């Protein structure tokens, strides 16, 4: 195998492995939105507060997934 295709192979495998981290973000978002929807169903009057806190929590959980995304993007497009 020539060096160029070895590099491409390594990049592809590495970027794919890096995206495993997105699973954690997905779980976190699912849990927080699920909890928020339950809370809103039980207590509709407090929907604005719950929604704000939910968006905040989702943003934090999503940030972790996006770090994984950034790592894999760097592997794909910046590494030489």
């Amino acid at each position: 195998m020539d060096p160029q295709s070895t590099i491409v192979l390594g990049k592809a495998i590495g970027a794919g492995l890096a995206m495993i981290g997105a699973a954690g973000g997905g779980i976190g978002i699912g849990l927080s939105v699920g909890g928020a929807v339950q809370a809103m169903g039980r207590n509709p009057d407090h929907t604005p507060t719950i929604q704000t806190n939910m968006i905040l929590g989702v943003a934090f959980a999503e940030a972790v997934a996006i770090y994984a995304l950034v790592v894999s993007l760097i592997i794909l497009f910046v590494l030489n």
Partner: protein
Amino acid sequence: MNSFWNGKRRYVALLLFLAGVYVALEVPPVIPFIQLPGENLPAGYNVPFTDIRITNTLVAAVIVWILLLLFLLYVARRRPKDGSEVPPGGFYNMFEALFEGLMGFIGGIAGGAHFRLIFNMFMTIFLIVLLSNWMSLVPGIDTVGFIHPHVKEKYDAEKDEYKLVTTDGYEIYQGFLGISYVNGQCDWISPADEAAADAAALANAESARLAALDELAVKAAYARYQAAHNGHGDDAHEEDAGDDHAEEAVESDEAIAAYDDVLAAREAEKLARRDRGCYTGVAVPPWQEGYEPYDKSKAKDISLHPDPSSEEAKLVPWVVLPFVRVASTDLNMTLTIAIISVVMTQYIGFKALGIGYLTKFFNFGTLFKSPLGGIDVAVGLLELIGDFAKILSFSFRLLGAMFAGAILLFVMSFLVPILPWPFFILEFFVGAIQALVFALLTAIFMNLATISHHHDDEHDHADAH
């Protein structure tokens, strides 16, 4: 204007769709060569009177500032000075609804003494990030640009000189109205690779010929073996030697056919490429004899693209260098806004709590009073680290979401020319949500900074007020 765009004019959408189909068939979409940092515009597009090159993301950022200034100038003009009602409808009302809604939203989160300052920061960040995110939906942005030779400068430490190295890219062709297009059907192949492929074909042909000859020789040897076995003795042995010489000298027809087959396959490959409108490189590539080494003083001429219709155009791979690339796909822009956000958070903290704000980070007050005082110190230091982590988290969140969205749009447009409009709707929402999250987190952190850390410590409050 309103009467023109009522339901009866729906055929306009159909015409646009058909035009899109025509363009997609005439000029097939090309998957761009994706680059994370903002691309420099070609030489000659410097910041005036300096050598600093302008990136295409900076162009987008300037467009966002100008648009925002124009919008707000218009809104400020339309705003009634005497506080009277403005007739509903129009662009002004959209802004009024946006400001009122978000003012109520932020008022619920950070409606304290510092509401005005926090809301100003929130709205500024929100509008700037929102506009630059939504720029990725505008046709022509990220796709229309300079046709640019895709060459890299590489430093050669042994010879102490820079040289240009060609990388991947496409061939170009002149299309409609003399506009140059990148030809997505034709990956650029360097002349050296082309020559290497030719040499490999020759070598393959030679080995195919030798293999055919070997096969013949084996057959002949088997025939001789059978003849010898039948008991002709010395005669057969002498004939063997003579036959060997004859086989080396005389080409058999089969061997020549095998040789020609391999070369013909290579020729057919080349012809198929040429039938698709691709040409193959002919000139001296950078790594071969006869190539002029990179001369720094000539840098301007080289990076200024040669005429795409000229013969020199075949020497290099070409890519599109967009005039405008979405500003939030560049780390410089997101990092700048993140630093502004975090620095302003500290400013508001000091403004609200005075020097006592520092006890949030260096909390030695309870170290000897309470048995768990050491934990407070550790928590304070964690807060300090957390504030630096905020810069990273802010900038990478926006960069990651918007850059991934841009790549999503590229790839989808490349796979299916007309149909990726659902992804544009997705990007519309992602852009809005990321802008809201960025600005909302800023507002929340600012609000947290204004709240005193010691709820039970009364004299700290007294100091602050």
